[in-house]
């Protein structure tokens, strides 16, 4: 039953992604100013939306781990699995966003990359979470979860400061498409529909991977626990 559910969800996700691709490439009209290249927004924005959501999952997981670490060890393990899964899948989606951005920038700005507020912030965010993953890999032993949770909290706190710093420094990224200035933004309903479908599809896919990763980590924890118990029993 569980397998059927997972399979069905995967099929729906793939169907959504195909439908989103069709909407984005064939149905939605060209942008009035940017023309064809603008369609990358259907991939760029959902990737980052998913990445930021998963980083938040990681942040909340880190906080929950530290709060339950002593009182409810079982909950803390679950929180830690969420923290790890969120960071890992978040880094993947952030990488997708960081790749599609320069592809667009090359056409629209004529340059691949610029040290603008949002670009730099996102890059630093990516670096922080990569360092988080590296730390989890390097620091072995039972204390790694605690140390990683602390680093996760530090990283999340750093993001607003990085953003402020870079905003004062320089800004070139286009103003927000949604909730931006008067006269900007998506007006065509076909564009909005394409955007909505892609958002849905990429979130469905991201959550799918996130939950898979979470389950793998939970299995990992259970095996580690069993191994520890066996070693303990063998010693007695």
């Amino acid at each position, binding site marked *: 039953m569980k397998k059927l559910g997972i399979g069905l969800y995967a099929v729906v996700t793939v169907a959504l992604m195909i439908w989103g691709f069709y909407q984005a490439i064939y149905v939605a009209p060209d942008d009035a100013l940017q023309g064809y290249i603008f369609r990358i927004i259907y991939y760029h924005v959902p990737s980052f939306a998913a990445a930021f959501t998963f980083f938040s999952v990681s942040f909340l997981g880190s906080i929950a781990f*530290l709060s339950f670490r002593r009182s409810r060890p079982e909950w803390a393990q679950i929180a830690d699995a969420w923290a790890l899964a969120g960071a890992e899948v978040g880094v993947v989606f952030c990488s997708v966003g960081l790749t599609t951005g320069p592809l667009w920038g090359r056409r629209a700005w004529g340059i691949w990359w610029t040290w603008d507020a949002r670009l730099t912030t996102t890059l*630093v965010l990516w*670096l*922080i979470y*990569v*360092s*988080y993953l*590296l*730390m989890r890999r*390097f*620091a*072995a*032993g*039972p*204390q790694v979860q*605690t*140390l990683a949770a*602390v*680093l996760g*909290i*530090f*990283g999340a*706190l*750093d993001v607003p*400061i*990085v953003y*402020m*710093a*870079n905003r*004062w*420094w320089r800004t070139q990224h286009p103003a927000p498409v949604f909730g931006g200035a008067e006269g900007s933004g998506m007006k065509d309903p076909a564009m909005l529909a394409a955007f909505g479908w892609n958002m849905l599809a990429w979130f469905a896919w991201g959550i799918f991977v996130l939950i898979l990763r979470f389950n793998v980590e939970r299995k990992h924890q259970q095996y580690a626990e069993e191994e520890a118990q066996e070693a303990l029993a063998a010693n007695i």
Partner: protein
Amino acid sequence: MIGAVWTHLVKDLRIEWRSKEAINSMLFFALLVVVLFSLAFDPRGAFSREIAGGVLSVATMFASVSALNQAWAREIRHQVLDAQRMAPTAGSDLFLAKVLANFLFVTIVQIALAPVFLVMYNLQVQGKAWQLALVLPLATWALVANGTFFAALSIRSRNRELLLPLILFPIFMPALLAMVVATKDILTGESDPTLWIKLLAGYDIIFTTVSLLLFDVVFHAE
């Protein structure tokens, strides 16, 4: 609280006074970085003022990592760290004392390096020089507070000397940016660094508070 911090601080200062390990290695390392950068970028005239702030910041950053790694490694020998864990004082006292000691070391290195730096880069401060006395301590505090915290965090990993810069540098980036831009503003005198000084102060307050709050968690993690 004050007594415990003072005891730890005096101990660290005495060890450093006798060995002079941290200051000597940092000083030489920072000097090397300054020389390497001047070879790489050939600083002359106005251009040297443009990049001097960045070179100074990066030199300080790299140099302090070597000292920060040593700060806790010293405590691991002879199980000193375990003894300190059992001591009836808060871990944050120990942390604060370590930060103060390392802050002092890095500041000494900066003061010693300043004349060499001014000579090698032919610097004349165009802005208000006294503002450097705000920017440098604030930035050094940001570096040392976070660095001491992350050094304690990475102390029990397999390759801690490598891990510390990997986790410290991404978090330190906004402070580094503020330090670089503020120093450049002061050296060139082209714009006002007040905003960046405020950012550094905010960064210091936020991260010192969080470090003090979370240090016990890291210190007693097992």
